[in-house]
């Protein structure tokens, strides 16, 4: 917010300067427009997922009889069915459901921190930011486990015919996933998994760093001296965006 008062000259009009036509501070506006550009990035990722998925045949049989093959696109609920400490158990989408729950709850604590910021309540801001950070770190840990499981694969693997990195066509049992081949389906399935959830996880990581910054500054009283808690609001916008993206990733990568 500008500290110099400028008298609004009516001849200048709304866009002539000296006022705030959008009734939002510079920082908040820029956060919104950055998020708009980020929406395009993630939308491009997910729409690409859709385009590549429809370019492969879908699994024809009943979901229950699904077996992995690189001939057709896998049914996600049959791939993402592992939960930590429950080795070998078929629990479709349970773990990703837990992750979704964690991220939505961290979004709630974030909006509570923003609400506390409006009231200049330092203790509440610090408390809710800490909870949000806990949520974010828990989510990231879950994702680390998910990636690790996805990369190492199942005990039995899948017999596949594919072109290996030397350009030879081979028929062998594939375990886990990399960018070249994976036991779940066609190569783009794992590639898109790594790119989409990886890019989202990268955003969450940055979010946690920003949350820590806000947490620290709120705790030592920087915002109190500044006279407002707008930084919490801006970081809040970013954090909700991360949750927003996950809502779409959850639907289009795991559910459909």
């Amino acid at each position, binding site marked *: 917010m500008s*500290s110099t008062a400028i008298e609004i000259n009516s001849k200048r009009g709304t866009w002539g300067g000296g006022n705030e*036509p*959008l*009734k*939002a501070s510079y920082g908040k*506006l820029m956060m*919104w427009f950055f998020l*708009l550009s980020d*929406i*395009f990035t993630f*939308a*491009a990722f997910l*729409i*690409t997922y*859709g*385009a*590549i*998925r*429809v*370019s*492969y*045949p879908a699994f024809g049989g009943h*979901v229950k009889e699904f077996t992995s093959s690189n001939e057709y696109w896998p*049914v996600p*609920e049959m791939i993402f069915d592992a939960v930590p400490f429950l080795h070998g158990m078929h629990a*479709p989408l349970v773990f990703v*459901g837990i992750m*979704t*729950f964690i991220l*939505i*709850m961290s*979004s*709630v604590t*974030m*909006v*509570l921190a923003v*609400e506390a910021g*409006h*009231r*200049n*309540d*330092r203790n*509440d801001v610090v408390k809710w930011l800490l909870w949000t950070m806990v949520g974010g770190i828990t989510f990231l840990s879950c994702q680390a486990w998910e990636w690790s499981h996805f990369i190492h694969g199942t005990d039995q693997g899948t017999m596949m015919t594919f072109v290996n990195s030397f350009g030879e066509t081979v028929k062998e049992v594939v375990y886990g996933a990399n960018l070249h081949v994976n036991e779940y389906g066609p190569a783009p399935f794992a590639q898109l998994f790594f790119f989409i959830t990886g890019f989202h996880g990268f955003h969450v990581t940055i979010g946690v760093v920003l949350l820590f910054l806000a947490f620290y500054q709120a705790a030592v009283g920087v915002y*109190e*001296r*500044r*006279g407002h808690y707008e930084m919490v609001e801006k970081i*809040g*916008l970013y954090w*909700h*965006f991360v*949750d*927003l993206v996950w*809502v*779409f990733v*959850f*639907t*289009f990568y795991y*559910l*459909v």
Partner: protein
Amino acid sequence: MSSHENKTTLEVLPRNKEKIRKIWKTALILLVITAVEFFLAFTMERGMLLFAIFVGLTLVKASYIMMEFMHLKDESKTLFWSIMLPLIFLIWLLIALSKEGTEIFMLRW
């Protein structure tokens, strides 16, 4: 400027009970919708109908997050539309790339 002062005592306002209740209500709605999606994924036959339901529910969730959590509905109309209108381009991208995907499918198989 207040930043030069070591201590300003900002007045701490009391908790806005109604606002906080609304936040929790929104959270409950989001969680219930997610639970419904989860339930439908295992009870309904896969197909166009289920896909449409999923897309619909996802958009409902997205609008709750953007309007309630990000307070976009409380911003000025100009800001609201300068965020919402550019998203029209995504519809074009969606149409173009789905067409592309189906064409590649026809070529390959």
